[in-house]
């Protein structure tokens, strides 16, 4: 069974991969998107998203490029094929986990 911190780390990873499946984004956009989609239930630390992005890129799940939009140059991240595969596996795992937790909660 994953520890609480591992679960939280896995959750951040899952959300980042899921968001980047739709479009390439830069760090600030990702943080805002997570907060908006979870209706502020999950608000990752503004600055701490980058180490995760760097680690995911190092693991070969993301790719990055510097892009200038509206006169501002930023590093954009996007999902690659390996990242998409990992996202599919993590999504399945997460669904089975929430299903199991749901089954326990419903039985109470």
């Amino acid at each position, binding site marked *: 069974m994953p520890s609480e911190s591992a679960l939280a780390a896995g959750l951040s990873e899952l959300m980042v991969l899921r968001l980047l499946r739709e479009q390439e984004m830069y760090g600030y956009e990702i943080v805002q998107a997570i907060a908006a989609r979870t209706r502020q239930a999950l608000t990752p630390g503004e600055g701490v998203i980058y180490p995760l992005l760097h680690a995911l890129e190092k693991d070969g799940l993301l790719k990055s490029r510097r892009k200038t939009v509206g006169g*501002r140059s930023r*590093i954009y991240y996007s999902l690659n094929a390996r990242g998409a595969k990992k996202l599919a596996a993590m999504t399945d795992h997460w669904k089975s986990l929430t299903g199991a937790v749901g089954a326990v909660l419903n039985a109470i």
Partner: protein
Amino acid sequence: MRFEGLREILLKGGVAPRHVRRYLAELCEHLDDLTEKQRALGYEGEDAQLRARALLGEDRELAAAMLEQKSLRSLPARAPWLIFGVLPPVAGIAAAFALIAPLALIARILHMVAKGGILAPQWFQGTAFAVTGAGNLALAPALAAGFVFLATRQRISWLWPLLAIVLLALMDLQFQAHFPPAGQRGGALTIGATTWIWHWQSWLETWPLSATRLLLTLLPAGWLIRRRSAA
């Protein structure tokens, strides 16, 4: 410079300099976005900046998040024994071959090489003497300076580059170019690598050159020790 304190924490923590550089650049961009948002919310000037900085997170939190990612640590931080203990002699020999290889290649392409040695025109002899001279005097000192630069850049303990310098100083990398009188075959380019402690007689034979090289190689160590005592 913004986030100077954070840069030091991360480098001392062993995070690879390229990740540190990129992280700080991204944090600066993120801070600008947050400040802009605070201004849009009606906060002005310094107030907007302070609120944005608070939202970004404290240096301690920002550093902890990065230090937690072990995969982002640099190789010299993870395995200093490999970089400063094993690499110096290997790098010395590899650099010596890299320096002499273009000359050997040119000699072969221009058909200077035959059974009796190299039949070299004047320009080739001049180039060969310049390259071997540079190799004799500058290669080991340049490598020693490189290891000091690497360690300083990554805030690695000064003892590691000192070890690298000692290993390089113990090595006796020698380049030689020898050419007979004009028009005669029999020229040769040679590289020799040994530990001069075991071959001190040959070291003494060429002592002006060897001692100069040794002193130049030890120069970065002197700088390291001076910097250490000044700190």
